[in-house]
């Protein structure tokens, strides 16, 4: 118990220690949290009318962002899996970073869902026994279960590794008997949350664009692209600003995963677009609307082409060895583009255009309101704030700077202090 308390204390103290840049970043996020608390208050008192959603386009950007956070959370297993499946020693050391990313973004996704709900105060209605869960009929009940279990698995994994390392008792051969099963379950669970989230959308026969068998494949390949893109950016930042040693091979593996995820994504898009556009039945209406607009409604058109071109050119760029090995210029740039392209793809290609035409033939443009926009930033800011603090503390433990006083001494891997 004492150990846990001093762990929390040392971890928190270290997480809040940093240089000027570090505090500037935290302040930057705090600004959006401050503004967001006000806009969130407005939304929770006025109702969802303050968002751009209507009965025609009933999912707002919160839902779109939720799908994206599920991408990131699911893809974090790509950091964990190579270590445990292929015994990549360098990535096994970094597995905890992947688990932290998964944990934080699942939590962020759940927060987005709360923003999406009309009555967040009634969330308890879905808890079995005190409420009623329509299991196994409703796909949303499946999603609720898998998301929360994934959150739990990662929380267990992260705290076990960090506390063990903090106490200096983390030895490969002497891990708790339940730890490996938990890690492997978390690895399997990553794709699972994603497939279930795809089914939540795909189960709606009336939204033609979602009722497609390639949706889970599209989701997984986009997860494989956007998740590792964030991981590469985090790895590059960590090794630049902290003492944590991250070798090039780890980053190269991530870059390869991004490249081939984008490759698969290209095929998924191509087959989807062909199947819809060649016969051009009513199922193609949403896609045609997205690509070319409809009778002067062409809000989504530029987003569609910019996103598709960005994803395609990132794929081609990553095929070049020079780009993949350009750790301080091209690789982060491409990762940045991939991350944002997939982020924009969610509302502007996946969610909003799919609602037009509506079942009664209405075409609607979705315009994100300012309050909604700040609420989205609010949730992202909370997510990135927790991610930053968690990673900072974890780096302190991984590099041996945060240790329990009883822990055996280790030689610090660097001489510089902190960020």
């Amino acid at each position: 118990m004492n150990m846990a308390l001093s762990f929390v204390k040392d971890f928190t103290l270290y997480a809040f220690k940093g240089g000027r840049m570090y505090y500037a970043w935290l302040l930057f996020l705090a600004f959006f949290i401050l503004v967001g608390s006000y806009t969130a208050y407005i939304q929770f008192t006025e109702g969802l009318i303050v968002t751009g959603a209507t009965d025609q386009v009933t999912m707002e950007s919160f839902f779109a962002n939720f799908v994206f956070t599920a991408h990131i959370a699911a893809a974090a297993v790509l950091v964990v899996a190579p270590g445990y499946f292929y015994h990549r020693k360098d990535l096994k050391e970094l597995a905890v970073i992947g688990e932290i990313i998964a944990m934080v973004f699942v939590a962020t996704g759940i927060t987005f869902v709360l923003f999406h709900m009309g009555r967040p105060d009634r969330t308890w209605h879905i808890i079995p026994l005190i409420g009623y869960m329509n299991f196994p009929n409703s796909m949303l009940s499946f999603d609720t279960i898998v998301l929360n279990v994934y959150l739990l698995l990662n929380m267990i994994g992260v705290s076990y590794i960090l506390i063990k390392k903090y106490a200096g008792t983390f030895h490969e051969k002497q891990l708790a008997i339940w730890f490996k099963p938990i890690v492997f379950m978390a690895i399997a669970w990553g794709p699972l949350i994603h497939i279930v989230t795809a089914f939540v959308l795909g189960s709606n026969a009336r939204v033609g664009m979602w009722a497609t068998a390639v949706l889970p494949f599209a989701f997984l390949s986009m997860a494989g692209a956007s998740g590792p893109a964030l991981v590469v950016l985090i790895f590059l930042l960590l090794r630049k600003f902290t003492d944590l040693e991250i070798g090039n091979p780890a980053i190269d593996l991530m870059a390869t995963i991004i490249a081939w995820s984008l490759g698969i994504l290209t095929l998924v898009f191509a087959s989807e677009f062909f199947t819809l556009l060649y016969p051009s039945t009513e199922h193609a209406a949403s896609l045609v609307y997205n690509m070319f607009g409809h009778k002067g409604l062409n809000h989504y058109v530029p987003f569609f082409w910019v996103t598709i071109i960005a994803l395609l050119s990132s794929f081609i760029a990553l095929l070049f060895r020079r780009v993949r090995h350009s750790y301080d210029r091209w690789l982060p740039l491409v990762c940045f583009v991939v991350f944002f392209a997939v982020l924009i793809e969610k509302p502007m290609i996946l969610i909003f255009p799919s609602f037009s035409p509506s079942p009664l033939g209405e075409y609607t443009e979705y315009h994100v309101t300012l309050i909604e926009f700040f609420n989205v930033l609010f949730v992202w800011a909370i997510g990135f704030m927790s991610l930053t603090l968690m990673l900072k503390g974890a780096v302190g433990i991984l590099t041996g700077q945060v240790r329990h006083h009883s822990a055996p001494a280790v030689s610090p891997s660097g001489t510089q202090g902190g960020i």
Partner: protein
Amino acid sequence: MSEEKIGELKEANDVQQGRREFLKNVCVSSAAALVAAPASAGTVAEASNPDADVTVAEFFQGNFVLMSDEEKKQAIARLEKRYSAQYKKKTTVSDTAAPDDVLFGYALDISKCIGCRRCVHACVKENNQSRNNPEVQWIQVMKMPKGNIAFTAENLDKGYPEKSEFGDFGVQVGGNAYRTAGLSTEDAQNYYNDELVPDQDFFYMPVQCQQCEKPPCVKACPVRATFRDHAGVVLIDYNWCIGCRMCQLACPYHARRFNWAEPKLPAEEMNPKTHYFGNRPRMKGVMEKCTFCVQRTREGRDPACLEACPVGARKFGNLLDPESDVRRVLSTKRVFRFKEEYGTYPKFFYYIG
């Protein structure tokens, strides 16, 4: 505890009483006041605001369908109290069950419908929808172009691909393509604003909840707030709905409406005869939709939209009763179901003449 008794207690304790005794009495009398309060708040005029304990109890209320009879009674009493206070008129909330051996069905003659939208407004009035900004309407009337305006001679020479220097490949898409004719949602106008109806070049098709036998919305609800009752009507427990809108996503008829904001229902326009699953006033953030006027039809009356229809295009009744209007329509007319390909088996039928 009555007021007199408290008075006696107070008198009995004279000045000599200790501080402790005094405190005890304060507690007793305030407890008595609490007990007395609901009794005096029985009349409508006094209670301008629903009590906090009503709100709290409503918050912890369970799923109505799964409640015990006693809990149901309490929930109804709470709601009646709250609505009566809020709208300043005696409001009844019924939970009448549907009669046995009844399966409600509806039939609508699209050749008679003139698109006047009286049904839409009668529905809004009857069912206590939000009145303005936004006005929530459960029935949407589609105005669709007749086939006679779909084809023109000037499009004869147009077509794709056109003859060009690359050669003549034959017209594969005729010039009169991309124009809808007949029953199609593609060119339907849902917000027409005509002074006179019907427009000669158009026909009309009202769409509301189709009360599917295999409703995709019920399947999608994660908390079983929406369900199918034994008379085949899909209903919503407004107090149990969490506002996730999965049902709205699942519905292929655009029948469900969400309360994006607190509904604006002026007290003087409020219909005080309500049903728990029907027209009782809703709150923000919950779903609502056509219930076949559950508050009327469970008592043997016709839905409000039917009563409002000036041309008699709407028929309602028991699908199990061979003498009912709906059954007669089904046996004598050419009937179809809207979007039958979705496999939802609606109990709302359209027919022609």
